């Protein structure tokens, strides 16, 4: 015979102001199994918890119902209190008299009291079927994977490594560094971006705890927190990176020059290349689309007639350590990790959707990131800002904000957060490069919300003389060798036309290509803009709904360098909390299959959002089988199971039916 104790909470006046708590106490006192009823102003307070502990010991309670707030708030509190008194914590149930009752029925005290009575009755009916449950230990692989080698991923990897744990950093490009490596200077301090980033990149390469896999991509992920199995494809570089010394002869002498992705096609690179001089690792890869020898081989293999393309192989002939490896192939490796940090970063929005700005049509209309390359000393113009059309230095430069941002029709609804500040930075840096440059910045709202940002923005106006015009530009068109920018200064309410030498578009920040695929592999969500979704936007900003998977950098939402670094460190901290344990404690409230009842229809496999159900053969029959490590106890399988063969521990069919039946008695 169970002995149920019912503990009614007033929650200050949150509950008792609406619900007549003494009346609830009287109504439930004589329910079957109830042997003890108590009230407290704050059940969650230490005296409240002590009352629970004391009642368990003194009255020999075998079940506890706490009627207070949402279990999301205090289930852990009361389970812990019960455990301290020697009761299995899963023999505690809560009835939610606050969120489900007093708060939503504040205008009808009588009905609220009746509902409160029913909520407690339900919990009491349910709890007699509760069984003691014991959490299962989950083994922990004390090794982390970081996906993406931009500043956020670099920071996460360095922090995890600094704590003494092994970490693998996977980057799909041939170097780490990401978007920050493309920047000339960073706001608001105007640090040279490479100068502050390169030491961190080198540290990644040299840290013995970090395994760096560049030119590699994650192909599949299985398993769960503590033991993710990740398949990584290492793309063939056609260069033996062990032999290669990074001397640079190959990329200097390679005759096949193609537009450089790193310079956003504003400069050229060879077909065997490193993306930029400070690349890490300083080892080249062969671009198999453009390499002449590859083309030659393809021609030979096709058996086509006609003139053969040149064999070239100049790199091979000149390479001192003979590092070219033409028959190298992609390599797939599978490794095990306890936790994963996703730091896939961002791409700039493609401004060609705005025909009115002529991006791609007029060479002197460029994006902010392209201007970074023109400003950079290691960029295609060696830091001399020149118009792509005629190579002359621009004197009048017009910046257009929100290109793709804050536009629900043709772009994105959100603010891209970094543009206002980098426009100010560009105005300041352009003025430093050439005092004759006059910048005009069309903005809608000048958003300068970080530390030192407003002051920096003032500097652009006061010191660099940038003219800020509040309004969005309608059109850019060529006239008499200039680009005419048509806007409105909405503060004075007049149309403005500026004949510019160069127009810079502050293209929106969008999630990096392929981030959604990574999300699907990891079973984490992404929003309608394909940004990855955090477990809670305020209180769990780097966690996801998949245990052991954390987010860093701009894959969550647009963010600048300081924020990327913070998010990288935060994700590392969360990762370290896991890696510091030998084993993890798994929730015991998982699905369980009654193999005798299971018909093997496998509907549960289809609906399981965590891929936790597979099949096994029991006595010659195929039946469902639950992986307790992956199961989150959501109950979808139970809901679709026609023979009622799957139940969830802690929410069994018996418990649910008892709750429903209690409402009719």
């Amino acid at each position, binding site marked *: 015979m169970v002995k149920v104790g019912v503990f009614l909470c007033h929650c200050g006046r949150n509950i008792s102001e609406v619900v007549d708590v003494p009346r609830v106490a009287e109504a439930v006192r004589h329910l079957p199994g109830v042997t003890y009823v108590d009230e407290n102003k704050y059940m969650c307070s230490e005296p409240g918890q002590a009352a629970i502990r004391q009642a368990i010991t003194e009255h020999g309670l075998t079940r506890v119902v706490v009627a207070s707030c949402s279990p999301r708030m205090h289930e852990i509190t009361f389970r812990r209190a019960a455990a301290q008194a020697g009761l299995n914590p899963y023999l505690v149930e809560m009835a939610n008299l606050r969120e489900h009752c007093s708060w939503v029925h504040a205008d009808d005290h009588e009905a609220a009291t009746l509902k409160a009575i029913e909520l407690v009755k339900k919990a009491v009916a349910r709890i007699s079927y509760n069984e003691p449950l014991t959490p299962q230990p989950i083994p922990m692989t004390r090794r982390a994977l970081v996906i993406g080698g931009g500043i956020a991923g670099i920071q996460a990897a360095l922090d995890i490594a600094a704590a003494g744990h092994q970490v693998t950093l996977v980057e799909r490009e041939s170097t780490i560094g990401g978007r920050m490596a493309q920047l000339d200077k960073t706001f608001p301090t105007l640090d040279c971006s490479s100068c502050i980033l390169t030491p961190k990149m080198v540290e990644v390469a040299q840290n013995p705890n970090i395994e760096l896999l560049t030119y590699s991509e994650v192909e599949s992920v299985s398993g769960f927190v503590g033991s993710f199995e990740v398949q990584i494809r290492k793309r063939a570089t056609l260069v033996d990176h062990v032999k290669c010394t990074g001397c640079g002869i190959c990329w200097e002498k390679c005759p096949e020059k193609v537009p450089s992705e790193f310079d956003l096609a504003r400069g050229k690179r060879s077909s065997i290349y490193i993306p930029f001089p400070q690349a890490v690792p300083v080892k080249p890869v062969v671009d198999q689309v453009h390499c002449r020898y590859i083309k030659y081989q393809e021609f030979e293999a096709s058996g086509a007639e006609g003139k053969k393309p040149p064999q070239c192989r100049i790199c091979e002939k000149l390479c001192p350590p003979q590092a070219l490896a033409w028959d190298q192939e992609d390599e797939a490796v599978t490794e095990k990790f306890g936790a994963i940090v996703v730091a896939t970063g961002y791409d700039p929005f493609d401004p060609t959707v705005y025909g009115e700005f002529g991006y791609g049509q007029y060479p002197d209309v460029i994006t902010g990131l392209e201007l970074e390359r023109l400003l950079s000393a290691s960029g295609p113009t060696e830091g001399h800002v020149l118009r792509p059309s005629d190579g002359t230095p621009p004197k009048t430069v017009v910046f257009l904000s929100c290109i793709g941002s804050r*536009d629900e029709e043709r772009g994105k609804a959100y603010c891209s957060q970094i543009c206002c500040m980098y426009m100010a930075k560009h105005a300041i840096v352009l003025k430093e490069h050439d005092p004759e440059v006059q910048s005009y910045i069309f903005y*809608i709202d000048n958003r300068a919300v970080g530390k030192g940002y407003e002051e920096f923005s003032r500097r652009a106006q006061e010191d660099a003389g940038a003219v800020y015009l*509040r*309004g969005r530009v309608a059109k850019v068109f060529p006239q008499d060798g200039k680009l005419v920018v048509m806007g*409105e200064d*909405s503060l004075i*309410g007049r*149309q403005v036309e500026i004949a510019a030498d160069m127009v810079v578009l502050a293209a929106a920040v969008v999630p990096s290509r392929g981030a959604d695929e990574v999300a699907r592999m990891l079973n984490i969500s992404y929003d309608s803009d394909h940004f990855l979704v955090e477990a809670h936007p305020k209180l769990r900003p780097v966690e996801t709904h998949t245990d052991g998977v954390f987010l860093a950098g701009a894959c969550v939402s647009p963010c600048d360098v300081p924020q990327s670094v913070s998010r990288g460190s935060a994700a590392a901290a969360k990762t370290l909390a896991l890696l510091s344990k030998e084993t993890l404690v798994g929730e015991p409230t998982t699905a369980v299959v009654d193999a005798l009842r299971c018909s093997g229809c496998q509907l549960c496999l289809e609906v399981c959002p965590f891929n936790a159900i597979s099949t096994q053969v029991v006595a010659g029959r195929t039946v469902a089988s639950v992986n307790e490590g992956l199961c989150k106890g959501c109950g979808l399988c139970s809901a679709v199971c026609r023979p009622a063969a799957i139940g969830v521990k802690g929410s069994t069919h018996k418990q649910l039916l008892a709750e429903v039946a209690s409402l009719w008695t």
Partner: protein
Amino acid sequence: MQSVIPTSGFRVEVERESGEVISRCYQCGKCTAGCPAAFAMDGGPRWLLRAVQLGMRSEALDSTTIWMCLFCSACHARCPAGIDIPRVLETVRHISLKERRPPASKEVALFHRIFLGQVAGLGRVHELGLGGTYNLRSGHPLANIGLVPRMLARRKLPLLPYRKKVRWFKRLLSEEKKSGD
């Protein structure tokens, strides 16, 4: 300068008649920036949407902005909030007409009145008649006059109109006019 006391009644009125959600406008100014007629307007489309948002009823109804719109829809095509701005301007013009307020552009209002009169009376527009009537009634008898002999010489202006009264349209026009009373 007189201070504005923001009210919402006018916005609700315009939103109801136009079907456009004016509060979606966040005043980015892209409409006015590319408006080919803005130079001839007092406030321009962005200003008009703001006036509607703030409930500046008489300023909006008496503005030249609602009369100078060319209905080229460049603003609508580019509006990041997808607002059919010409529809809003047209709606404010309709309210202004219904209230029999003196139009801020007599010329444009007169032109449209004569135009629709021709449609009702003749069935089709007769350009020479339209121009002549407009010039006489607008007090600009010599407007565009230089073009007339050159157009006549190239037989661009037929002398006689098509004539077929459109009674149902005439009735519709007068009913619409009465609806403002």
